[in-house]
C-alpha cells in the first residue's frame, strides 16, 4: 500500500504536509496560467490563417524571431511540463502498490521532465531562423539570400 491512512490523532509531519500543499497550489496556479498560454498557442498555430497547413520551419522561424513568442513558449514549456509531471505523480501514487515501483516511476517522471525542460529551453535560446547552408526556400522570407 502506498497510501497510508494515519491514526486520526497522530502528530503530522509538517514539512511533508507543506510540500504537498505547495504542489496542490502549484496545480491550480499553473493551470490558470496555462489556460491563456495553451489556448493562445492553439489559436495562432492551429486556428488562425491556414491552421495546421502553415506549420513548417519558416513558420517557427517567424514566430521565434519575436521575443514575445519566445517568452510565451518558454513559460508554457516549464509550466505545462511541471504541471503534467506532478499530475502524473499523483496518479502513480494512487495506483502503485509496491513502494519501490512507486519510487522508480516517480523518479523517472521527474527525470523525463528535467530532460525535456532543459532540451526545450535550449532549443528556444539557441534557435537560428536562418541557418547557414540550408535551402533558401525552406527559410523565413526575412533571411538574407546568399
Amino acid at each position: 500500500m502506498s497510501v497510508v491512512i494515519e491514526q486520526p490523532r497522530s502528530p503530522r509531519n509538517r514539512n511533508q504536509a507543506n510540500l504537498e500543499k505547495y504542489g496542490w497550489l502549484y496545480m491550480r496556479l499553473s493551470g490558470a496560467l496555462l489556460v491563456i498560454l495553451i489556448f493562445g498557442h492553439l489559436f495562432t498555430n492551429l486556428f488562425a490563417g491556414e491552421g495546421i497547413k502553415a506549420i513548417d520551419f519558416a513558420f517557427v522561424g517567424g514566430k521565434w524571431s519575436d521575443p514575445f513568442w519566445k517568452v510565451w513558449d518558454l513559460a508554457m514549456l516549464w509550466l505545462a511540463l511541471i504541471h503534467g509531471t506532478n499530475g502524473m505523480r499523483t496518479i502513480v501514487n494512487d495506483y502503485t502498490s509496491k513502494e519501490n515501483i512507486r519510487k522508480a516511476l516517480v523518479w523517472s517522471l521527474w527525470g523525463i521532465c528535467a530532460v525535456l525542460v532543459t532540451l526545450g529551453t535550449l532549443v528556444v535560446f539557441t534557435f537560428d531562423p536562418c541557418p547557414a547552408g540550408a535551402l533558401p526556400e525552406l527559410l523565413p522570407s526575412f533571411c538574407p539570400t546568399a
Partner: protein
Amino acid sequence: MPTMPAGTLYRGKVGMWSWVLHRITGVAIFFFLLVHVLDTALVRLSPEAYNAVISTYKTPLIGLAELGLVAAILFHALNGLRIILIDFWRKGVKYQNLMFWIVIAIALIAFIGFAPRHLSHVFG
C-alpha cells in the same frame, strides 16, 4: 437500513465522472507534450528534418487525432477552472454540478467552432 449517501462531491454521478475524465485527459495531454517537445526540437537539427517530420503529421489520421487532442484540452482546461472554483469560491461546492454542465457547454461550442475549420485544412 443504510441508505446511499446523497450528494457527496466525488462519489458517483457528475463529481466522479468529471474526475475520471479529468484524469484521462491529463494523461493524454502529458504524453502528447513529451512527443511535441521532441518534434519541436528538430528545428535545431535542420529545416529539412523538421519539415520532414511535420509533413508526416499532415495526414487525415493525425488530423482527426488533433481533433481529439483539442477536445481533451478543452475539457481538461475548463474543468480545471471548475476545480479551482470548487476549491476557492465560497459557493463552488454548491454549484459544482451546474458548473460541470457549463464546462461541457462551453467546450462543445468551442469545439463546434474549431472542428469544421480544422477539417477543411486537413482535407482541403
